[in-house]
């Protein structure tokens, strides 16, 4: 019984839902379209329930840390406080994330923090570029030269003075990079399709914990 519940029923559900999803994409049969719309709505409801899992995990982990006065516990307290503030403000206004109060908190706290993290990427990229662009052999020399044209071609000043930088960059992007890019993209598409087929057939059971 346990094996049926843990293995065969999930595989059967996966097969049925997978086939309906595929047929929804390729056919115009109203019954299939309607069924898949219902399934998608179920998915939204299940995802909403899953939000609770995340919230419970946050309260358990950080609540324990606060109770035990663990490492950086004041930050855990701040996290839970802000979590409650967001929920209370969202629910109390009746407009959820459309209320100006919620938007104000979001725009005043979350957006600047996110922008700060995002802008720090330039330092990470500079460090990465330094590692990659060191000339150690003939391959890295070509990579370095290509990077010079792309970086200089992307800046306003160099193409203004030497238009050749811009045209070389364009040629590199449209001729060399797009070829390699499309090759990888075709491989990715095929790989995703085959993984989908394996999942529908029950061969790929990673999502079941290899039940």
């Amino acid at each position, binding site marked *: 019984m346990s094996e049926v519940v843990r293995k065969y029923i999930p595989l059967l559900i996966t097969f049925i839902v997978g086939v309906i999803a595929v047929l929804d994409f390729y056919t115009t049969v109203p019954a299939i379209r309607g069924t898949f719309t219902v399934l998608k709505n179920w998915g939204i409801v299940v995802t909403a329930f899953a939000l609770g899992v995340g919230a419970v995990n946050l309260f358990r982990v950080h609540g324990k840390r606060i109770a035990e006065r663990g490492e950086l516990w004041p930050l855990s307290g701040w996290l839970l406080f802000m979590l409650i503030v967001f929920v209370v403000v969202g629910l109390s206004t009746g407009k959820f994330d459309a209320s100006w109060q919620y938007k104000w908190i979001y725009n005043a706290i*979350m957006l600047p923090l996110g922008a700060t993290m995002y802008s720090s990427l330039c330092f990470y990229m500079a460090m*990465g570029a330094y590692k990659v662009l060191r000339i150690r052999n003939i391959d890295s020399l070509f990579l370095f030269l290509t990077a010079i044209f792309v970086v200089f071609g992307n800046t306003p000043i160099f193409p203004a003075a030497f238009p050749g930088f811009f045209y070389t960059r364009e040629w590199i992007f449209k001729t060399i990079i797009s070829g390699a890019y499309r090759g990888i993209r075709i491989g990715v598409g095929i790989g995703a399709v085959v993984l989908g087929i394996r999942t529908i057939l029950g061969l790929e059971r990673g999502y079941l*914990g290899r039940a």
Partner: protein
Amino acid sequence: MGILTSGRIVAFIAFILAWIATYLGIELGKRGKVKIRRLPALDAMEEAVGRAVEMGRPVFDIIGMGTFTDIYATQTVAGLSVLNYVAHLCARLGAKLYAPQASVDVMPVAIEMVREGYLAEGKIEELNVDEQLPYLSGTQFAWASGILGMASRLKPASVIMVGPFWAESMMFAETFDRLGALEIGGTARLYQLPFFAAVCDYVLIGEEIFAAGAYLSGDPLQTGSIACQDWYKIAAIILGVIGAILATAGLPWVSQLMSI
């Protein structure tokens, strides 16, 4: 052709052919006639976990912030397959695994897979789900900064990043590199691949992550099922070459055929 959606008829036929090719691949796999090339990044996972055991430091497995309902779901499934394998390895060899989560719908599955891995190795009492698979945030940079903080405090010996990644990929790769971790990165998101290629010790490029589950299972049946990927690639190359030649000659037949 009223039943089939206009513009997707050839795609549907191609999909049916993919099913047939997969079936043939499975049959060849059963007979042991399918051999796939080695993937050093997947072979190195045992080395990564072993390194963590020797150094007495943890292993991080990050599956990205994709969900089951977006277009990156296949990459998330691939990341989960790798997570399951890594959980088995960590439980067997005695390394502590951390897999911080970003998606609430993926998280229960990830927990179940890690639990199954520890259970199968008889080490379930060593797993602390709340500590090892914490939910950090569903917001990109809050999640990323959470992982960077965890990494700075716990100093992992190895990190495995397989799944869909966005701008945070470079932050992770650089930070873990600075901490001296052995890095295995893999994604099918093309803009992030160069970042992993630049910094990680081992890289899974694009489609290779989709083969991870079958490759790591070692099951000839599953290995056979991924052989058809190569057949399809050959067909794509042939069509591409013919299409390019015909288009150059002013005959866009292949592109017209694809849009039927």
